[in-house]
């Protein structure tokens, strides 16, 4: 692969294909199995043969890894019964086999038409994820797609051992429209794209320690970042959670009165914070590398 491929523009299959070693990917419950959602027909909604998530195994520079990739363009990547169960099964397998997992997030959260089972799936995924991490197996999240990583997806991401984001990526629990609908436009103007990206976007998450690596919107950049992340440690134990408790408490204490992300970036000592949004990756990293908060494994 020599030409630049946008992570954002690629679909889930293209991402998996471009991320992994050539022809190394073997899919579990592929689309030819036609394991579709049993709950969409009642709403007269179209189904997708893989129910919006691809799971399987491939290699990354020869190393065996398990991969899950959400299709953000199918129902906004939202999680339903089958979609969720595929990921749960993969994480349970990862624990027994001791193989690390890459989750290519691209989700708006729970699929409304399957709300109860989608939410429960998210909880089962989180539990399976935590159990594999307690066994010392890594889970790395890659976030940079059209749907972002919202709702329950954001909570799953918060259980990963490392997170890689691009500028296009967003991580949040409530979406901008939901905050505006519930709390009013003064609280959050969902049409203010710059505000959305300052509050929830990849650059802010990277600066505040909500993500561990920042990648260009390019599949090769994500691949390099994934390789580096896999060199780290995935173990979750009481020590890690104690450290995360301190990290998050410190964050709230230090930035709890901030009104806007720019206040936080200013406080971090970032030069010309108003320019951050417009900076290309190289210049952004140059300016923030020694100023940003890092999770330092406390995740």
């Amino acid at each position, binding site marked *: 692969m020599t030409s630049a491929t946008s992570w954002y523009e690629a*679909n*889930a*299959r293209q991402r998996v294909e471009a991320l992994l070693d050539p022809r190394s990917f073997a899919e579990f419950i*592929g*689309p*030819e199995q*036609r394991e579709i959602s049993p709950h969409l*027909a009642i709403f*007269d*909604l*179209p*189904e*997708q*043969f893989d129910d919006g998530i691809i799971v399987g195994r491939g290699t990354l520079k020869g190393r065996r890894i398990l991969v899950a990739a959400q*299709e953000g*363009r*199918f129902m906004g990547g939202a999680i339903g019964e089958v979609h969720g169960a595929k990921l749960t099964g993969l994480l349970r397998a990862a624990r027994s086999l001791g193989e690390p997992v890459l989750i290519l997030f691209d989700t708006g959260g729970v699929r409304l038409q399957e709300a109860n089972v989608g939410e429960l799936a998210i909880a089962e995924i989180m539990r399976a994820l935590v159990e594999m991490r307690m066994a010392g197996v890594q889970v790395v999240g890659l976030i940079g797609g059209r749907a972002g990583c919202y709702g329950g997806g954001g909570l799953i991401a918060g259980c990963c051992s490392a997170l890689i984001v691009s500028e296009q990526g967003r991580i949040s629990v409530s979406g901008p429209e939901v905050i505006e609908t519930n709390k009013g436009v003064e609280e959050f103007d969902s049409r203010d794209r710059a505000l959305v990206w300052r509050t929830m976007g990849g650059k802010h998450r990277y600066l505040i320690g909500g993500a561990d690596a920042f990648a260009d919107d390019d599949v090769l950049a994500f691949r390099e970042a994934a390789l580096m992340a896999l060199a780290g440690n995935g173990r979750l134990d009481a020590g890690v959670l104690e450290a995360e408790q301190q990290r998050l408490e410190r964050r709230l204490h230090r930035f709890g009165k901030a009104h806007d992300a720019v206040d936080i970036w200013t406080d971090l000592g970032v030069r010309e914070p108003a320019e951050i949004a417009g900076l290309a990756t190289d210049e952004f990293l140059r300016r923030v590398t020694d100023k940003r908060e890092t999770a330092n494994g406390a995740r």
Partner: protein
Amino acid sequence: MEKLSFTMKPSTAAAGTRARAIVGVVASGNLEVLLERGLPANICVIDIATAAHGFAAVWEAVIDDFVTRRPAGGLHISINDGGARPDMVSLRLAQGVRLIEEL
């Protein structure tokens, strides 16, 4: 959802040995096309699930055209349609055949 099915008699069979291929995504204006090899070389079956009712004639025209232009013999093609226009359908079908013929 409307379910349509067409059985065609292409004159050329798809080359290559890949068992299956898939292209596209079920999204607004898009569709997913799953191609599986295994039918007799002069048969192509195309199954379609679509939320847009009443367009059987349009599908038939697109498929007629596809089968005339591309080597579709031996293929079982299954489509989940998200409301794609005819030119997008033609594109995906062509992409699908190219993919399944890939070495």
